[in-house]
């Protein structure tokens, strides 16, 4: 596998009047799918705009495919396929016109793959863009981005507003892109189910700060909810790495982000159940823990 970094953000800061993205460090290697997860207004789109050169950082460095951004954006974007749910095609033209337009710009345009995608997404080249539904519009944008065979695919909330079938089709397509391990995907969403399904690396972002970034399996292995039944009058043993506890009579639920078998040994017979957490549960617990730690 080629381990060259496709995205490198170091100490990035971007200040707006009512929002600041602070000290963001982020790496994406070739062959990876990174899910960028955060609540609305967390800074996902700002991060993506910095990566695509649409915004310039106030501090820090942004490098994409080896190019400094935004200075070398024209060069970098030759190998980037970028789709955002806020992006629109030219309403006066047809899907086919856009295919010809993009094909004439990108040397890597794959007409056979484009035709396959058109069929798979049930698009009609002769259809005017202004007549497309939201789902069809997103599919057309993705078809145009995928068929140019970019080394880096950047998707900002691409599945937002799509029905489950359309989401399934798109997510399947994204994983197909990664069959070539020199390619990578950065995928932002607040839908953790989508992210959990296709990402192999996950970055949580909240209120302009990076909360945590690591491999998906790492998250899923390290986070647990442990249910205890404490004998009357006994105290909960002191444990490190417990980031949340909920007490209901003699029942206690602990949340840990560094689960290990030793932890269960330490808790002894009080342990009733150990639950794996979904990505959504991990995300919420993680964000709440970090907000608490920052006194927010």
């Amino acid at each position, binding site marked *: 596998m080629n381990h060259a970094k496709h995205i490198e953000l170091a100490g990035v800061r971007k200040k707006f009047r009512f929002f600041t993205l602070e000290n963001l460090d982020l790496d994406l290697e070739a062959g990876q799918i990174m899910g960028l997860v955060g609540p609305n207004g967390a800074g996902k789109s700002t991060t993506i705009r910095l990566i695509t050169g649409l*915004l310039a950082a106030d501090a820090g460095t942004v490098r994409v495919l080896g190019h400094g951004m*935004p200075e070398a954006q024209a060069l970098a974007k030759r190998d980037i396929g970028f789709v955002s749910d806020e992006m*629109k095609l030219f*309403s006066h033209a047809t899907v086919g016109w856009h295919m010809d337009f993009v094909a*004439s*710009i990108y040397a890597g345009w794959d007409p056979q793959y484009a035709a396959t995608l058109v069929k798979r997404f049930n698009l009609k080249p002769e259809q005017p863009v202004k007549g497309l539904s939201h789902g069809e519009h997103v599919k057309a944008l993705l078809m145009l*981005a995928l068929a140019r065979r970019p080394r880096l695919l950047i998707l900002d909330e691409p599945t937002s507003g799509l029905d489950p079938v359309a989401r399934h089709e798109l997510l399947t397509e994204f994983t197909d892109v990664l069959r070539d391990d020199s390619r990578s995907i950065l995928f932002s969403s607040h839908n953790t189910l989508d992210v959990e399904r296709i990402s192999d690396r996950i970055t949580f972002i909240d209120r302009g700060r990076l909360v945590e970034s690591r491999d998906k399996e790492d998250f899923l292995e390290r986070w647990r909810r442990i249910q205890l039944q404490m004998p009357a009058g006994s105290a909960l043993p002191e444990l490190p790495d417990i980031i949340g506890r909920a007490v209901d009579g003699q029942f206690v639920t602990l949340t840990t982000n560094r689960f290990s078998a030793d932890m269960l040994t330490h808790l002894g017979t009080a342990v009733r159940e150990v639950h794996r957490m979904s990505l959504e549960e991990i995300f919420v617990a993680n964000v709440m823990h970090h907000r608490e730690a920052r006194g927010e």
Partner: protein
Amino acid sequence: MNTLTRRLIAKEFFQHRWMIASSTLAGVASLLVSAGPGIRYAIGSLLFITAFVSFGVVLAMISIATERKERMLQFVLSLPVSYADYVRIKVWSLLACYAGPWLVMSGGAVALVLATSHLPDGLTPFVVLLSGFMIANFSLVLSGALLARTEGVIVLLIIVTNMFVSLFLFLVSSLPGIAAFKDGAVPHWNATFWAVLAVELAVLVASCLAPYFIAARRRDFV
């Protein structure tokens, strides 16, 4: 000129083809109306100026403000192009889109003055200056629309540049070097004419170059 630049320029012509054709047609039709004497000339002239001005405003608005408002700009900026490239391409492609109808309307207006017996040939310098004003005014709208960040600024820009039309007609036609000769039998290409033309040219050049310098310093594009 690279392929992307060529394609984006072609895109503008494709997108605005009907507007270019219909504005040219409207301009020519209004000139034909104004070929008649009296009230026909007055109505035709008014229609001609309206067609000329509104074509420029609508062209800039649809191509720049609407593209931004309807988020097509994000698609353009996802292509291998910098914002400075985008600005350069917009300025030249829209000037090119405007130039065709402008040439037809300007040429038609001069021809009308020279060919029509009820219009004195002395009016020709004023008509040439009016044509120069139209393209300079369009470049101002174009430049302003590229630089404006909000819809309010663009609306203000349209109002101000429309006011310039009335100001131009009143002020330039009152200049002694123009007023004294416009009813004459022969055109007078005097110093006043050249001075006004030089100002129009300066506005045109400055308006076309300003977005380059400002866009090059701008750091956020959407």
